[in-house]
């Protein structure tokens, strides 16, 4: 087993994973855990869907970071705001004050010019790391399909753009992204086939195409297997005839609903365990943190706290 303990020693973490596996919750939980340890933390949501706000206290997040807990700051990415900040910091020309309506046009250029939007987003988080405004920056990054384009943007820009300000700044960003002591990707998955397959493929692609280190995997929402093998056999017998009729007569039909539901959950857990085993077998050189299903009514701060506890228990 690979050690996971040093994950929060890095300064820039990209939390990614297939859509719907809970990567925002994991990003928020990593942020909470780091803040509990006394680090000054920034969590940045890349896709501006509002999921990160819901994971904290529900207040709307903006490009300007807000302190959602002591030492824990959260922001949501806006390429237009990032561009405005960039121009203010680096271009230093007086017309920047008038960039308001122009930013929309620039956005349009960014749409057409490969990598520009991505670099505005990635540039902002790298800048926060470089300037040491925070001890650790945790990015609720793009899903598996887009993360490679996102973290690979500086290299793409370097290859496509021969001169100019943007190109000049790709070098330090690439160096930061490729430094495993500083930067790492955390891939979140559930114990289901597609998320596991995408995780295995993403580990490969991140390594071959980006140079960003895969720091850890988080297997999220694992269904607990609370019956022994012998219990399962008994359960199977009880839910089949003739015992089924006997259960119905002795306790009532609702008892069959309970037994069927538990048998169903056991089966799901068993299928999940197979997928998890596949993940552990194929990716044997990255630490995997196991996070159980929290059986909470909804997401939000309580679940984030529980997931942070679970990650701490995993040695983080």
């Amino acid at each position, binding site marked *: 087993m690979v050690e996971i303990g040093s994950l929060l020693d890095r300064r820039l973490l990209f939390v990614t994973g297939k859509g719907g596996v809970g990567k925002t919750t994991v990003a928020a939980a990593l942020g909470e855990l780091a803040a509990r340890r006394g680090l000054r933390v920034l969590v940045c949501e890349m896709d501006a869907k509002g999921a990160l706000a819901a994971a904290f206290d529900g207040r709307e997040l903006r490009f300007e970071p807000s302190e959602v807990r002591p030492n824990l700051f959260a922001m949501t990415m806006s390429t237009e705001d990032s561009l405005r900040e960039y121009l203010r910091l680096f*271009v230093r020309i007086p017309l920047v004050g008038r960039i308001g309506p*122009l930013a929309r046009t620039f956005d349009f250029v960014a*749409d*057409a010019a490969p990598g520009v939007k991505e670099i505005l987003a990635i540039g902002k988080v790298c800048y926060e790391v470089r300037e040491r405004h925070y001890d650790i920056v945790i990015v609720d990054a793009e899903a598996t399909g887009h993360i490679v384009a996102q973290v690979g943007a500086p290299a793409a820009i370097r290859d496509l753009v021969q001169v100019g300000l943007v190109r000049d700044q790709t070098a330090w960003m690439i160096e930061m992204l490729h430094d495993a002591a500083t930067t790492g990707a955390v891939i979140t998955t559930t114990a289901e*086939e597609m998320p596991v397959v995408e995780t295995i493929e993403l580990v490969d692609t991140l390594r071959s195409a980006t140079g960003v280190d895969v720091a850890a995997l988080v297997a999220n929402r694992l269904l607990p297997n609370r019956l022994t093998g012998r219990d399962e056999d*008994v359960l199977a017998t009880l839910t089949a005839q003739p*015992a089924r009729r006997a259960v119905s007569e002795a306790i009532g039909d609702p008892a069959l609903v309970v037994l069927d539901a538990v048998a169903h959950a056991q*089966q799901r857990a068993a299928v999940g365990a197979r997928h998890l085993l596949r993940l552990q077998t194929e990716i044997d050189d990255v630490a995997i943190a196991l996070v159980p299903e929290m059986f909470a009514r909804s997401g939000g701060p309580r679940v984030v706290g529980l997931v942070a506890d679970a990650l701490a228990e995993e040695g983080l």
Partner: protein
Amino acid sequence: MAVDRRAVRRLIATKEMLIVCGSGGTGKTTVAAAIGVGAASTVPGRTLVLTVDPARRLATALGIADTGAGIVQVPAERLQVDGQPPRGELFVGMLDTQAGWDELINRHAPDTVSATQILGNPLYRNITRRFVHSHDYLAMEQLHELHATGAYDLVIIDTPPSRNALDLLDAPRRMREFFGGRLLKWLTVPYRSRLFSAATQPFYTVADRVLGSRFLRDIADFFILFQRMEKGFVRRAVEVEQLLHDDRTAFLVVSTLDPAPVHEARFLVAELARRGMPIGAVVANRVLPQIIRGRVANNAARQMTALDAGVVADLAAAADIHASDVAAVLTAAGGVFPDLAVLADRESERQRELASLDAPLVTLALLDGDVTDLDALRRLSSALVAETDSG
């Protein structure tokens, strides 16, 4: 609208194009494939399922393991149910964005020289991968193309994972606007006059400074070539846009009962309605059995953790198992159940949200395993195209 088990059956009987969309990870590809299987089994005619990068085992189940980007027919014997041959034919194809773009260029370029120049331009591959949401546009374009050939009675398209579902709906309009937009005009004016305008337009100065004029010129060279195809592209984009509003088209919005996909599904349904695009149904996928949710079951679970020894002994005798084993399992199951009920309650609330939308709701039960073989796909498809309220 309430749960309507016949919604999908009606759609496959009356529509020519079904666009399956929704949040990533909700089972869009599986639902699209299952509808295809259902359509081919129950309705005469030729059905095509166009999908993006399906799980390999799902592809194998459909018999399309090594076909690349082409369209292949699923062998009829694979669609047999109880020895009955299917009523229709099923074809499956995979969407290949790059090949699709190359084809578009070849079709719309005024001559082969232009086509070769564009295809050979170093920026071409990079730009087609990214600009104006080219995956989304390509999906809609291919749907139009395949429908227009008349070779298929029903085309079902599984849409690419979209960061924002609206990108898909707006892709044709954005493509059309791109050709009429300021950006293309500016990028393609001769370089000298651009220098002149740079003196008056602060934006261009900033763009030149930040991106570098060389890069802008590379982009301009490409778009000057690209602009030669304006007429064909714009006409085509208008047609594709019309297709999204057509009566023969219907959108299916797939969601699980998790918070994020439900949020996206609600948003998508509202936006489809606002744009006047036809919503066929909302499909709630991987739904836990409703019966788990009742208080009655919860009471039974509590009862099971403290059963009378006599009851346990009777059960043990009937099942021919040792009484202590029966007691242990009943207690364990009763103890585990409340957690499952919480999950079911959570889902039930989300299902109510989906049912309140202005579209028929179809629910698909959570299956015991992953849907990776034809049997599972068939079970799913019979749930989707069910004729009766049972099952």
